């Protein structure tokens, strides 16, 4: 469960004030909004990479506003993925588990499981610098899921992918969420993605974050009205 209560974030001239958000357990939520509206900022506030000026961040009911990023247990897939250039794919999947001092056997089992689910078994020994866009996305997703996080945050994870890869990954995201029951917040500006995945829809516009009915995404509503 992800809850934001009256969050205010300031960074230079940019400010988001009184943002409220509530995503129930086991829900796939999609956050939409134009460029520069602060969608990424909200994700960063949830995972603790950005300090909030006021308000509270609750994950699964615990107030984590002042917690360090590493203590929150948030799986985060940033927009630029930020893979670790000097590590192999296996290294990415192992990292969070090594940080948690898991046993070698447990790490091995978890990596095998993740690699199977994400379809990246053949890539495990490879360095990440020359993976394709879709492969990189899978690695970033695997890294975020590896330690069984409380919630999953993804920042435009399907951007810059060709349509076929995008569809496959959409399918993967949906099945992963079904399997894990993970509360997920997915930022995108693609209506197609939102329509495929969203169980709840939030829109950030002119500093206002509002929940919108899923019917908003209906091809017959706004999109068609625009064209």
């Amino acid at each position, binding site marked *: 469960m992800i809850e934001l209560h009256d969050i205010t974030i300031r960074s230079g001239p940019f400010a988001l004030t009184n943002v409220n958000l509530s995503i129930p357990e086991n829900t796939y939520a999609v956050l939409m909004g134009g460029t520069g509206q602060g969608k990424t900022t909200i994700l960063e506030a949830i995972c603790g990479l950005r300090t909030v000026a006021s308000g509270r961040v609750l994950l699964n009911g615990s107030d984590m506003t002042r917690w360090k990023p*590493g203590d929150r247990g948030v799986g985060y897939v940033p927009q*630029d993925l930020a*893979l670790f250039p000097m590590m192999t794919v296996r290294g990415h999947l192992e990292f969070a588990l090594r940080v948690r001092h898991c046993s070698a056997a447990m790490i091995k089992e978890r990596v095998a499981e993740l690699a199977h689910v994400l379809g990246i078994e053949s890539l495990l020994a490879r360095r990440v610098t020359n993976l394709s866009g879709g492969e990189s996305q899978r690695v970033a997703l695997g890294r975020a899921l590896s330690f069984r996080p409380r919630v999953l945050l993804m920042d435009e994870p399907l951007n810059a992918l060709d349509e076929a890869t995008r569809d496959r990954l959409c399918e993967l995201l949906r099945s992963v969420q079904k399997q894990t029951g993970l509360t997920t917040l997915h930022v995108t500006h693609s209506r197609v993605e939102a329509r495929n995945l969203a169980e709840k829809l939030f829109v950030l516009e002119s500093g206002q974050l509002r929940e919108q009915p899923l019917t908003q995404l209906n091809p017959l509503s706004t999109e068609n009205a625009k064209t």
Partner: protein
Amino acid sequence: MTIKPGEPEGVSPRTATDAMEVRGLTPSGSPRIAHRAGSDVPFFVVMGGLGGSFVLLIVAMLAADLAFTSPQHFAAALSKPEIQRAIQLTLVSCSISALLSIWVATPLGYLLSRFSFRGRWLIDTLIDIPVVLPPLVIGLSLLILFHLPLGDTNLERIMQESFGVRVTYAEPAVVLAQFSVACAFAVQTMRVTFDQIDARAEQVAMTLGCRRSRAFLEIALPQAWRGIVAALTIAWARSLGEFGPILVFAGATRMRTEVLSTTVFLELSVGQLEAAVAVSLLMVLAAMAVLGVVRLVGAKVVR
């Protein structure tokens, strides 16, 4: 549309706009202003001439050195025990000061690159002081620092009494004088290195549950290794060229605090021009070897 006779050959306009273009008319029908961009030769002559003059100067200097000396001079200089001892001290002191510089410059460069805090500009300015200050002044400042009365003692005496190490006019002074300047250059290099490494990966590492220290050691540092090699080399090369601070702070005692730059000075001052040039060329060779190693290592990383 059809192509009218009288239009230039070899061009086949496919659209009305193309046809206008061929006739020297803009799409709106008004005549185009005739213009040819002209030759780029003057550009390369002027730029290449100005830039090349510097390259030429370096080549000319080295060539003159080479023409002045001979293998006999070289052998004679290298057989002198003072010079052998100076080579030894130079290699050891440069390596120690370069390693010390990296040890200090890596954390400092990282902190300055990753965090903005009140007073950072002041630290930035302070670090650059050794770069812009006359080298002699650094030597003098070190000398003063170690002999400024602290109550009834001074830093030099504390070092001697507590650690049994003599600093001023001894080998440690050579290393410290080299380090004071070399480290400033190493910090600049490390800072740029970390500036070029995306901090995002370290942030993600922290969301995965690790502390800053681990993100630094496992994510940032491995990516910085080319910068570390570069900084190490720059620090080594700066240390090799250091002269003023060593002269003031460590002195120029033969067989004791004489490094190669001091040798050049000492040989020159007693009129031994041949030996001075031979040693100079030795330093040129050492510098070129170091630069070559860096290029080689750098190229390997890219591949």
